[in-house]
């Protein structure tokens, strides 16, 4: 399988106060192959959100390297990183993070505006994606007029707008009831079956074990273990 993302000996250290510092990630190495469904698991403060930011090229490491398609993106400028994530990574957040004064359709259109897709294509694609997440009749509704589950589905449609290879979901069901959460996870499973690489960050082991095929277990900024689902059973994996 083709490797799509690799974190190599990555450290992330935040400065705190005059001299203090917080080590959020300590010598983390992991890789993601095309078509994987991966979960990054860990309790609060384990460094999973920092990991997600680095994988999603929202942030750069203090030390170590991040490769996307074997290209080192660790030292790219913020604008170049924006370009990378805009084209290749779709984000889904726990808080949905839709722009409140834009309709569902406009929210889905937005990433395409940043990639300078022409208006006709944008409109067509946004309508298709919203139809795919069963929100065809809610296209012109504002986020405030939608339920949590509907908002998360808009966020999924938005994440798919530029047809990225990787979908990065941070606690995608964290703010949803179990039934709605299941529905959202089903969408992610469907996307994975269609070839998208899915990475979810969660603290919920059941969610991770039910949907992912590989889990990176984080604790105190380090990878504690890696497990893989082999023939329906979870087994420790070589990193």
């Amino acid at each position, binding site marked *: 399988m083709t490797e799509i993302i690799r974190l190599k000996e990555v450290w992330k250290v935040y400065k705190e106060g005059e001299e203090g510092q917080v080590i959020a990630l300590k010598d983390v190495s992991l890789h993601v192959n095309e078509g994987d469904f991966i979960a990054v698991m860990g309790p609060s403060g384990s460094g999973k959100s920092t990991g997600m930011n680095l994988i999603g090229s929202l*942030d750069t490491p203090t030390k170590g390297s991040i490769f996307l398609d074997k290209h080192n993106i660790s030292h790219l400028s913020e*604008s170049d990183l924006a370009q990378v994530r805009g084209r290749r990574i779709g*984000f889904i957040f726990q808080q949905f993070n839709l722009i409140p004064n834009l309709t569902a359709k406009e929210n889905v259109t*937005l990433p395409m505006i940043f990639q300078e897709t022409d208006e006709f294509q944008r409109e067509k694609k946004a309508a298709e994606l919203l139809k795919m997440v069963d929100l065809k009749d809610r296209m012109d509704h504002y986020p405030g007029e939608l339920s949590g589950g509907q908002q998360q589905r808009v966020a999924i449609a*938005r994440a798919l707008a530029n047809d990225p290879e990787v979908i990065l979901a941070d606690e995608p069901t964290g703010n949803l009831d179990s039934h709605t959460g299941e529905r959202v996870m089903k969408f992610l499973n469907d996307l994975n079956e269609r070839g998208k690489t899915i990475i979810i960050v969660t603290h919920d082991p059941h969610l991770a074990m039910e949907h992912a095929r590989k889990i990176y277990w984080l604790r105190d900024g380090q990878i504690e273990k890696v497990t893989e689902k082999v023939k329906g059973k979870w087994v420790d994996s070589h990193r």
Partner: protein
Amino acid sequence: MIVDYFNLAFKNLKRRGIRSWLTLIGILIGVAAVVSLISLGNGLKDAVNSQFNIGSTEIISVQAGGVNNYGPPGSGAAKPLTQSDTDAIAKLANVQWAISRNIRNIKIEFNKEVAFTYAASIPDNQNYADHVYETIGEIKPAQGKLIESGDRGVIVIGNNLADGNKNGLGRDIHVGNTLSVNGKDFRVQGILKKTGSILYDNMVTMNEVDMKNLLGYGNQVDIIAVKVIDQKQMNQTINNIEKLMRQRRNVKIGQEDFDVSTPQSMLATVNSIISGIQIFIIIIASISIFVGAIGIANTMTTSVLERRREIGIMKSIGARNEHIFYQFFIEAGLLGLIGGLIGVLLGVAIGYMGTAALNSFIGSTTKPLISFSLIFFTMVGSFLIGAVSGLLPAIKAAHESPVEDIRA
């Protein structure tokens, strides 16, 4: 792409509602003031120009000056001009003719009502009278006939004076009616055509003999109208008149107690005064615009702080720094532009209302001068003022860290 930014910016402004409107007020007031004052000022210049009625450009006016100068030009001079001044000027080179004119305040009574206006003398010499009528091309009879040589006990009145709604006498005056002027009865022998000039529409003309007897100013002359033969030598003639008058009045250069001017020079003076007032008010309006710009900068800075999360979201879905910059920059520009647009509309409305008031006050038919370029440059200027005010907040927004913003 740029249209999308305008669209996004407009939606954001709409969302911010009352705060956006309040931010606009400074720019709005400034722009309204600039547009209305420029259009009014230009209209006013137009009105003044029309009041001057420069029928003949070869005419030089000579007036006496002085501290006691109330009422019509020259009429209250400390040291008035006299007929002998007129005669002396008439003998100068390049002078075709020089005519003594008197313009004085008078009281008229009609229909048991009293009104105050002014009378202008018409020379008893028919040639001179014709010169006056030719020079001031506006004086034409609408009814009856003009004052002529030998006319006694008769007057010709301006068009507004004939109108009961405008003359303050409560009744229309017709040819043949008798008016009391300073207590003496005169028959109206003519009514002048409407000119749109406050001077001529409210004027009473009478034969200079009648006027001298009625008002008892003896040999005094208020204005000497001088016509030159060769207009190319206008300046030389003015210099000669000034020299002569200095000798006759025994004054030195720089201490003249008289004034020699042409309609053009008087007009230029008035226009420069209006321009001065315009510039002064535009400076004051600029302060308002500056305050407005600070308001926009303040609003945009607050907006960046409030929308950090939104900035983070946009960056996470692929917005580059310049995208964020453009959005805030255009949003600030749009604030300025909307302020400018409303300001222009308000300014135009004030311009029209102002000229309507001016017209009804002085009976002129002026229109505000609103040019496309004035509106265009005001709008572009408003956008730029807004955009420049939003420059620093937009730069700040563009360089926010997506990770920190998304947590905000």
